């Protein structure tokens, strides 16, 4: 796949269709590939694509499409949802992107490899359905399915939403059970839920990585950068701040979140932030009708829309466990 992508990128660069390529390059560790922009065939030698190129590239297009010329972007199905959403919000100029959609079979999560007790990872090679993990203490083999990222286990769609051409196989929308965990929480008592979230959110170090990576968070000026907001870019001094930050962060993307799961992927503390977003998605689906952000570029978002007979907020009392 990597070779095919590099070859295609070089062709498109050579015939002048695009003048830059957005992809991934090797990072500090074998499992840590960083998004990168390449502007020549020589640079493309650094291009990487494997089971660890998990980053959603769509957000980079906000800045990139403001520059001269067209850019080639390799997008996974998740990323195409985000791109559609950004196009809808006029944050990305779709005409300036040449999208090569790539089929996706799910990405691996290095945290899951580490959780299996594998330390000192030097390199990871894919061999068929397994990874051979080269460590300081010798080689170990793990099955790919055992270390599939959580968001890919409950993948909602492998269908590419927007593309100019496809490399690999296009998939289908999957009727997944991604709301199971949200439902489980809803069925707990309020005390249990409070304890659960207190435990999770108290680990937050306010690094803002979840905000910075989120393809729906593209404001130039963010409320969390405002020093007068009282919750600006500082480690939380009180547990209130964590809740405030995470509720507001999730609320700001409610109805626009495509559920790509980047927030949880980048969280250095492993907080399941996607559950907050999924709760909003689930509520919207149940109260205002099924809605998947990023499916198209012209529908109205659920929070910029209304019907005359919407439910009253008191419906919260009738749902779930108190």
């Amino acid at each position, binding site marked *: 796949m990597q070779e095919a992508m590099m070859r295609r990128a070089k062709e498109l660069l050579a015939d002048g269709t695009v003048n830059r390529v957005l992809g991934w390059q090797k990072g500090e560790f074998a499992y840590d590939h960083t998004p990168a922009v390449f502007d020549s065939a020589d640079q493309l030698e650094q291009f990487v694509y494997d089971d660890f190129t998990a980053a959603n590239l769509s957000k980079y297009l906000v800045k990139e499409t403001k520059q001269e010329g067209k850019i080639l972007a390799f997008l996974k199905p998740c990323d195409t949802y985000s791109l559609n959403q950004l196009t809808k919000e006029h944050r990305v100029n779709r005409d300036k992107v040449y999208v090569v959609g790539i089929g996706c079979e799910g990405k691996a999560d290095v945290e899951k490899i580490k959780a299996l007790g594998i330390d000192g990872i030097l390199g990871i090679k894919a061999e068929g359905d397994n990874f051979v993990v080269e460590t300081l203490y010798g080689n170990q083999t793990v099955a790919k399915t055992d270390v599939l990222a959580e968001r890919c286990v409950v993948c909602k769609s492998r269908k590419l939403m927007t593309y100019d051409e496809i490399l690999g196989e296009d998939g289908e929308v999957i009727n997944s059970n991604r709301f199971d965990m949200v439902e489980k929480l809803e069925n707990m008592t309020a005390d249990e*839920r409070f304890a*659960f979230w207190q435990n999770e959110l108290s680990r937050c170090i306010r690094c803002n990585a979840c905000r910075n990576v989120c393809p729906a968070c593209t404001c130039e000026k963010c409320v969390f950068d405002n020093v007068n907001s009282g919750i600006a870019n500082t480690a939380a*001094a009180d547990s209130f701040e964590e*809740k405030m930050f995470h*509720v507001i962060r*999730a609320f700001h993307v409610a109805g626009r979140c495509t559920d790509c799961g980047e927030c949880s992927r980048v969280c250095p503390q492993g907080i399941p932030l996607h559950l907050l977003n999924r*709760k909003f998605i689930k509520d919207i689906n149940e109260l205002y009708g099924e809605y998947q952000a990023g499916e198209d570029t012209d529908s109205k978002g659920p929070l910029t829309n209304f019907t*005359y007979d*919407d439910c009253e*907020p008191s419906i919260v009392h009738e749902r779930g466990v108190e």
Partner: protein
Amino acid sequence: MQVEKKEFKPTIVAFCCNWCSYAGADLSGTNRLNYPANVKIIRVPCSCRVNPMFVLRAFQRGADGVIICGCHPGDCHYTTGNYYARRRMTLLFSMLDFLGIERDRTRLEWVSAAEGAKFAKTMNEFVEAVTKLGENKRLEDLRCKKQ
């Protein structure tokens, strides 16, 4: 020394729409209807002016309950503001419930300028419900607590 045990009196923040509930509160006053003095009214131009952050901010600054009052659906001075507010607040209240915050601490009520009696009744009920819950512990900010 005898320590006097004080009865808990909640602090309630009421966001009232300038065009209806605020006038409704005024009417309940001119009609000499009683509603608890611990309801602090904040006048907003429309119920949809209430940012979810305002609600959280109110809790941070020591509110024990937050109520939002707006015009009845269909009567908004700006035609559609309260419809948006309704969706937003439904989602916000649901999220607070998801985080384990007591669901009786938040409320949204439609009160028109002619419903002074409803305003007083709503506030009495809400204060009673919040008094039952006791002090807001789950969304408090210790730095903002009175010593």
